[in-house]
């Protein structure tokens, strides 16, 4: 019994049921269909994980999707250690966020639509992680992108939301273009798109060079970088990170599920899945590591000065995704996936807490207008505090173990940029702790800075929202305990578990160095928290003074390094200019319309001449018929002569 097939197809069935019958029949009961389906997927995923732990591994083709010459693609499933972990991450977060949405989206007029998209998203994401070939991966990849577009623009009557949806979709096209070419290159090189065949042959091409657009390039570097293009877009890395903060226009559960826990980590998953290809190219790994490190630092600095509750967390997500790429880039794929797994819990939790705060504040997002929420919403406060402690890397919590493993492997690994990215990563750890606690202190401490009306309205969220918070909080605290390093007496089970798929990155260093790296990361974490406490609780007038002192820096950071303005100037406006003046003005008006109008008028003119033949007189027709017969008879006679 291939029970694991239920994992993707339960949410798909829920999607079909909700989209067909949601509007008229199911209406406000849509959550039952979707939530039960995804909970079913979760149960089956846990069973699958148990099987994988006891040594099962599946690589099975379900049926042939397309067959053309030697190009064969199946819908197939690969279940190994990496897939099992991703399944747990996706279905756990998805289930909890479905439950949370019941409370959060209550009374919304598109209730059934929301849940059907959520189910479709879960289906696509599961197809993505369970694929056994690149094309099915691509299917899931585009599917989640599409759902992301639907859900960002969920409040489509709001212009900013529909614009944000378009932006996310279009920016992703840039990355997916490279990703698509990457898959073509894989097919050209290996003649197949199945993972097992590609990865087993990859080593044989370690030295191959090809001519690409006139340049002589190393084949594996090329393929790895093209695949990484897709990752950059999907995981919002520099320079395609601009869509993710805007994606916060969507409902908060969507931000938590798609733009924090699951979809955006697909890029990291891709790099980890393709590690046999990436490992063959040092250049590609350096690019991955540096992109990750730079993005991480860049997003963290922006996060320092933003005032929008959800955007701060969004920049934090971009920054943490950079961390994961940093890990993959230094060859520590297990550490990257480990961080992906712990990050999913604490970041989903942060977003859901933000949603809970928004719920209480009547949709207010500006943290400067909050404060003292601690006493009104204790559950939200404590869960969000634990999530922030986890992301800040406080020892014992999930974020600490994964972050420490990344920093240690960056410091001690064989990568030529290891030390640089370690330094950047450590700096980011400091910034992360600072902005996370700036958020906490401004939101929950001090005095309330909103309107009286809002203050009167403050309340803790309903049970359907707080229970998922508490469950995720357990994950944010405890999910790291499966990967406690040997150094502090743990078993590093996660690394061992992942070894068959992701290999094992060796750290070359003494125990003393390892203690030092850990001590530094803990120290910067605590100093970040301490600085935030000092600036926002003890001396609340300080931030204003600092801002005044460094006005120019603050302005640049507040405006996100003017990246959006730069793109608008470099890409968007020239594109619109070309569209208006060339495409509409010349191509459309002079070429296409000339053809479109010219063909009918030519046919019309010809017809006007031809019409004259039709006299309506019987004799003319009879004469022509007779002449025709004579000519045919004459031809036949003469030919036989």
């Amino acid at each position, binding site marked *: 019994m291939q029970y694991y097939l239920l994992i993707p197809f339960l949410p798909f069935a829920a999607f079909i049921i909700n989209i067909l019958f949601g509007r008229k029949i199911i209406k406000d009961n849509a959550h039952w269909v979707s939530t039960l389906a995804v909970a079913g997927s979760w149960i089956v995923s846990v069973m699958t994980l148990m099987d994988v732990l006891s040594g099962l591994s599946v690589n099975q083709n379900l049926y042939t999707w397309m067959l053309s010459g030697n190009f064969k693609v199946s819908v197939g499933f690969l279940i190994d250690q990496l897939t099992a972990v991703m399944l747990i991450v996706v279905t756990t977060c998805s289930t909890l966020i479905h439950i949370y949405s019941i409370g959060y989206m209550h009374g919304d007029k598109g209730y059934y639509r929301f849940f059907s998209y959520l189910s479709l998203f879960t289906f696509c994401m599961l197809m993505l992680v369970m694929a056994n070939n690149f094309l099915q991966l691509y299917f899931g990849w585009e599917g989640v992108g599409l759902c992301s577009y639907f859900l960002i623009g969920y409040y489509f009557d709001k212009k900013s939301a529909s614009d944000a949806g378009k932006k996310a979709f279009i920016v992703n096209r840039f990355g997916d273009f490279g990703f698509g070419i990457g898959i073509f290159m894989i097919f050209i090189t290996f003649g197949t798109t199945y993972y097992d065949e590609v990865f087993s042959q990859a080593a044989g091409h370690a030295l191959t060079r090809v001519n690409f657009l006139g340049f002589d390039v190393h084949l594996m570097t090329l393929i790895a970088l093209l695949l990484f293009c897709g990752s950059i877009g999907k995981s919002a890395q520099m320079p395609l990170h601009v869509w993710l903060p805007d994606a916060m226009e969507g409902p908060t559960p969507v931000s938590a599920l798609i733009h924090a826990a699951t979809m955006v980590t697909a890029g990291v998953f891709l790099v980890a899945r393709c590690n046999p290809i990436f490992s063959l190219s040092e250049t590609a790994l350096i690019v991955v590591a540096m992109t990750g490190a730079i993005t991480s630092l860049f997003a963290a600095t922006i996060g320092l000065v933003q005032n929008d509750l959800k955007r701060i967390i969004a920049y934090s997500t971009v920054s943490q995704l950079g961390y994961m790429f940093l890990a993959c880039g230094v060859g520590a794929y297990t550490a990257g996936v480990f961080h992906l797994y712990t990050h999913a819990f604490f970041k989903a939790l942060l977003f859901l807490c933000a949603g809970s705060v928004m719920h209480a504040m009547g949709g207010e997002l500006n943290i400067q207008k909050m404060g003292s929420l601690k006493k009104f919403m204790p559950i939200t406060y404590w869960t969000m505090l634990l999530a922030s402690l986890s992301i800040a890397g406080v020892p014992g919590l999930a974020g600490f173990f994964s972050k420490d493993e990344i920093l240690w492997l960056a410091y001690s690994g064989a990568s030529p940029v290891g030390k640089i990215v370690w330094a950047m990563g450590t700096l980011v750890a400091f910034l992360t702790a600072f902005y996370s606690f700036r958020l906490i202190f401004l939101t929950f401490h001090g005095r309330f800075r909103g309107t009286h009306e809002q203050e009167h309205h403050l309340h803790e969220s309903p049970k359907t929202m707080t229970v998922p918070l508490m469950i995720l909080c357990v994950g944010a605290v405890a999910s790291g305990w499966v990967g406690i390093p040997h150094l502090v007496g743990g078993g590093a089970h996660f690394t061992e578990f992942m070894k068959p798929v992701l290999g094992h990155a060796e750290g070359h260093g003494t125990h003393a160095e390892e203690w030092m790296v850990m001590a530094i990361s803990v120290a910067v974490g605590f100093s970040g928290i301490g600085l935030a406490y000092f600036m926002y609780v003890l001396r609340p007038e300080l931030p204003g003074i600092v801002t005044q002192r460094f006005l120019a820096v603050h302005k640049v950071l507040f405006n996100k390094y003017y990246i959006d303005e730069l793109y608008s100037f470099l890409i968007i406006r020239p594109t619109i200019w070309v569209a208006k003046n060339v495409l509409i003005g010349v191509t459309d008006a002079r070429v296409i319309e000339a053809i479109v109008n010219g063909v009918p008028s030519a046919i019309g003119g010809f017809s006007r001449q031809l*019409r*004259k*033949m*039709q*006299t*309506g*007189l*019987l*004799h003319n027709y*009879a*004469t022509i018929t*007779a002449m025709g017969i004579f000519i045919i008879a004459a031809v036949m006679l003469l030919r036989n002569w």
Partner: protein
Amino acid sequence: MVPLNWYLILSAAVFSIGVFGFLTRRNIIIMFMSLELMLNAVNISLVAFSHYLQDLRGHVLVFFIITVAAAEASIGLAIIIALFKNKNTVHVDEMNEMKG
């Protein structure tokens, strides 16, 4: 014994008269009669060949043609009567409603 050729010449002559009549006359009833002449010319040659080849299939074909011609004549005459009632003429040059 009349040789085959004579029948064929007769058939060709009758057929040509039919074609000539159809093309030159303007009275629709005359044209209709010319049409019948052409059909019967074909019948003559079919019967002649049938006899010459000692094969009855030619005869069978002729019976079919006669049947069809009868049907055609009844429908054709009905159309001509309908036309005459409408246009009060049997002159085909005045029937050019189908001019493009």
